[in-house]
């Protein structure tokens, strides 16, 4: 799944979350067909619900990523 963020800052916030939770991921160019891209996005084949729960958490020590990304297959 591609996790596509509006803000580049949030891509790296997302990366930090995945790292902290030992989830494999890649940083890839965002598929250009989508218009919510910021150049790079996260890609991971880990459980989408787990990643969503982590991104949407209010306990990040930073603002939540809720509503700040889209998921693309």
């Amino acid at each position, binding site marked *: 799944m591609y996790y596509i963020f*509006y*803000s*580049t*800052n*949030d*891509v*790296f*916030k997302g*990366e*930090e979350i995945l790292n902290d939770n030992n989830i494999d991921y890649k*940083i*890839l*160019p*965002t598929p250009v067909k989508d*218009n*919510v*891209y*910021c*150049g*790079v996005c996260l890609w991971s084949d880990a459980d989408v619900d787990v990643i969503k729960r982590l991104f949407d958490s209010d306990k990040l020590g*930073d*603002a939540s990523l809720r509503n700040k990304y889209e998921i693309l297959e």
Partner: protein
Amino acid sequence: MKFNEVIYFDNAATTRKKPNAVYDAFNNYIKEIGTSPGRGSHLLAVEASRCLYKSRKVVSNYFGCPSTNNVIFTKNATEASNLFLRGFLKEGDHVLISPMEHNAIFRPIHRLKEEGRIDYDILPIEIFKDLNANNLDLYIKKNTKLCIFSLASNVTGEILYSSRIIEDLNSRDVKVLLDTAQGAGRVSLNMVDDNIDFLIFTGHKDLYGLPGIGGLCSLKELDIEPLVQGGTGVHSETFTNPDIVPEKYEAGTLNMPSIWSLKAGIEYIEKNKKEIIDKEKELYLICLEELKKLPNIILYGNGNVDKNLPIISFNVDGIDCQKVSYYLSENNICVRSGHHCNILAHTNLGTKNTGVVRISLDYHNLFEEIEKFINVIKKLIKG
């Protein structure tokens, strides 16, 4: 005289000596990465963006800001001030400012008044020294939207900040903008705990960063008009800056080597804060006490080491402050004389017509440098 032998007592303008970690960070960034964040998806662009996020996180944590998205990088505190004031204030708003505000605050505010957009009043200094809530009510109007004050004065070093004044302003529904250009590296702040709505900072003073980096932090996600339109690296298809924070406010190439160096400076301070403050207090007290022993020295400020940055402003009675500064410079001692970009503070101190000589000390200064400085001043007084 070699420049590295000069005694530098103008750290309130720019700290000259930085921790080695700062030089290393700058060097490593420009040699190893050398690219800009948010510009492309190749591995060096990604690494630059990662460095930007890490830097933003260090700044955010240092100021107790609730989110990295609420940290906006600018080229200095002045740009942060202009970005915020031009975007936040609306027609008919009233603003309160302290009588010690630097021109980085005062000029943008006064310009907005000249444009007929806002009005402002200058609070008496007593409000910041011995806060009386009833006094504050005398100055707050129905349309008072914002109160701006410095963490500490760049002229006297007096710390104006107290959580109590912020509480009182919050309880009257007046937002607070804190200018931390002086003191950000010495006074511990937490935007969330202390309800500091907005805060501006600069990197090159006591945060030990390099020139060319500053910023604006906000308690809530910022929603104002950006100061600059241009390339943001995100949503390139839109005809104006996209409504995405923090990129919306950071159009144009960021000064990433300075941002990365600022991160190193802040991390150094976090590790060594007590040691830094203890030494600076000692330097300050020794210098102050030695100056007090001399004839014809007029000192300004409260002289209270616990409520002061290591800044001392003085005049030598009967000698123009510029002449004192020049004499010191001829003796390889750098100080700053004049008005220090702060006409409000000098009006408040009664030194508008004379200016003052300012010495601003730093952790890297040596006790023997104070001794040499005092001896040169003694020589000057003797004539």
